[in-house]
C-alpha cells in the first residue's frame, strides 16, 4: 500500500521572507494518490511549505525559493523561476483555512476555474460542475439551488464548495491548509471523509494542527519544527513508533 509512485520530490527546499529564513533545506517525497500530512507547532513553517507547491508566495514581494520541488511524471521544478506560477496553479489546487467562496452563485464558484481555462461550452461546464459537486459530496444538498449564492451555505458546505471548485479542473495535486480549523466537529468529519475518498484520484497534501486528524486521514506524515523537517514517515509508524525524541514529545503533547 505504501509503495506508490513518487508524485513530487522536494530537495533542499529553502524559503526566505526578505532576510528571514522560513524553511531550511527540506527533503522529502510526496507519494502519488496518497495523503501526506504536515504537522508541527504554530510558526514551524508547515503552511509556508505548503504554499511553495502552488507558488502562492510569488504574490508577496521580497520572497525567494531555494532548492527544488520536482513534479512527476513530467519532471518540472515547481519553484524554478522559469516556470510560470500560473501554470503551476493550473495543475495544483488549493483549499484554504477559512472557507472563501466567491460572492457569486454556487454554480459560478465551481465553474470559475473552467472559465479561466477558456471553457466555453455550456454543456461541458455544467457536466464538470455537477461532477465536481458530486465528488465533493455536496451535489445532493445544492442541486436545487445551483444559482443561489455560495455565501448562503453553512460553513462546512462552503468548505466543500471550495473543494468542488478546486476539483472542477482536475488538479494533479490538492493542497489543504488547515481546512477544518474553522468548522464544527460534524462538518470536520465530513471533510475528513471526503479527503480520504479523494485519495483515489488525486495526491493530497494537508497541513493540520490537529494530530488526531493527521492520524485519521493521512498515509504519510511529516513533522516540522522551526522551519526544518524533523521526521517524515508512514503515518502508522510516525504515530506509534517515532524515530526522533522531538516527534515523540510533540505527538504526546509535551509541547506545541
Amino acid at each position, binding site marked *: 500500500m505504501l509503495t506508490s509512485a513518487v508524485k513530487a520530490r522536494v530537495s533542499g527546499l529553502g524559503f526566505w521572507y526578505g532576510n528571514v529564513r522560513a524553511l531550511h533545506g527540506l527533503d522529502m517525497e510526496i507519494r502519488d494518490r496518497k495523503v501526506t500530512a504536515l504537522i508541527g507547532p504554530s510558526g514551524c513553517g508547515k503552511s509556508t511549505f505548503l504554499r511553495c507547491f502552488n507558488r502562492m508566495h510569488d504574490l508577496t*514581494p521580497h520572497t525567494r525559493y531555494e532548492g527544488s520541488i520536482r513534479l512527476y511524471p513530467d519532471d518540472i521544478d515547481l519553484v524554478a523561476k522559469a516556470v510560470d506560477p*500560473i501554470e503551476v496553479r493550473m495543475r495544483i489546487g488549493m483549499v484554504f483555512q477559512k472557507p472563501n467562496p466567491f460572492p457569486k452563485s454556487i454554480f459560478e464558484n465551481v465553474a470559475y476555474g473552467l472559465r479561466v481555462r477558456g471553457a466555453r461550452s455550456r454543456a461541458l461546464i455544467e457536466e464538470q460542475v455537477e461532477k465536481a459537486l458530486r465528488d465533493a459530496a455536496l451535489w445532493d444538498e445544492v442541486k436545487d439551488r445551483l444559482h443561489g449564492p455560495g455565501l448562503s451555505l453553512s460553513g462546512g458546505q462552503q468548505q466543500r464548495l471550495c473543494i468542488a471548485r478546486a476539483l472542477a479542473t482536475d488538479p494533479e495535486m490538492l493542497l489543504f491548509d488547515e481546512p477544518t480549523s474553522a468548522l464544527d466537529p460534524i462538518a470536520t468529519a465530513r471533510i475528513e471523509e471526503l479527503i480520504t475518498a479523494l485519495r483515489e484520484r488525486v495526491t493530497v497534501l494537508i497541513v493540520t494542527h490537529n494530530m488526531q486528524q493527521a492520524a485519521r486521514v493521512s498515509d504519510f506524515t511529516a513533522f516540522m519544527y522551526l522551519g526544518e523537517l524533523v521526521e517524515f514517515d508512514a503515518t502508522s509508524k510516525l504515530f506509534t513508533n517515532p524515530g526522533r525524541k522531538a516527534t515523540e514529545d510533540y505527538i504526546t503533547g509535551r509541547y506545541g
Partner: protein
Amino acid sequence: MLAASGGVVRRKRFDRLFVVLGMLVLIAALAVLLALFTDLVRQGAARLNPDFLTSFASRRPAQAGILAAWVGTSLIMLVTACVAVPVGVAAAIHLEEYAPKNWLTAIIEINVTNLAGVPSIIYGLLALGLFVYEFGLGQSILAAGLTLALLILPIVIVATREALRAVPRTIREAAYALGATRWEVTAHHVLPYSMGGVLTGMIIGLSRAIGETAPIITIGALSFIAFLPTPPFTGEFPFLSFAWLGDPFTAMPIQMFNWVSRPDPAFRVNAAAAGAILLGMTLLMNGLAIWLRHRLRKTFQW
C-alpha cells in the same frame, strides 16, 4: 454589590453626556442646511416653474431661465465623468493591484492625496494655460469638462483604492489558486465586488464638480448665452455628433453668480431658484450614491 460599582455610574454619565452633545451638533449642522434650502426655495418660489427650465437668460428677470446653464452643466458633467472615472479607476487599480511597493509608489500615493487638497482656482489656472491655450481647446465644454475631471481625479482615485482594499485577501488568493492572472483576479473579482465603493467615489467626485465655479470662470465660461450647444444626435449618419464639445458654454453656478451680482433685486429671485435646483441636483446625486452602495452591499457580504 461590587466595590467598583460607584465608578460605573459616574463613567456612564460621560456616555450620556456625549450622546447629548453629539446629537446637538448634528442637529445644528442639519438645521443650517435645511434653513438654507428652505430659504432658497422660499425666495425662488416665484420662478420655480417649467418655464424657468426651458428659457434662456434674459435682460428681463421674469423671463430669464436656466436652460443654457443646466444643459451646459449636464454636458460638462458628462465629459468629466467620461474622463475622470476610467482614468481614476485605472490609476487606483494600478496603485493597489500592480504597482510594486517602493519609494516611487509611495511618492505617487502621497501626491495623489495632496492633489485632493489643492484649491480649485489653481486647477482653473492650469487648465487655462494647458487646455485653453496650449492644446487650443478654447473656452469650450471639452476644456471645462477636462478641468473638472482633473479636479476630482484624486477623489475618484482615493475612493476607488479604499473600495479595492476592502476586498478580503482570501478572495484574491482563492482566485489566484485557481490559476487566474492578475488581470483576471482584478476584472472578475476585485473590481466587481468593490463596485459599490467605486460608484460612490465617482458620485461624490461629480457632486463636488457640479458646484465648482472658480475653475470654469477662469477658463472663460460665458455668463450670458442664448443658444444651446450643437445637439449630440443628428438626423444623418453617423447620428452622433461631437461638435458640442467645442461649443462655448455656461453652467449653473456661473448663471447664479451672474444673477446675484446684478443690481436689479428681481434677479436675486432667479438666483435663489437656480440655487435650489443646483442643490437639488447635488442631493439627487448623493441619494443615488447611497442607494447604489446599499444595493451592492446586499449583493456582496463577507
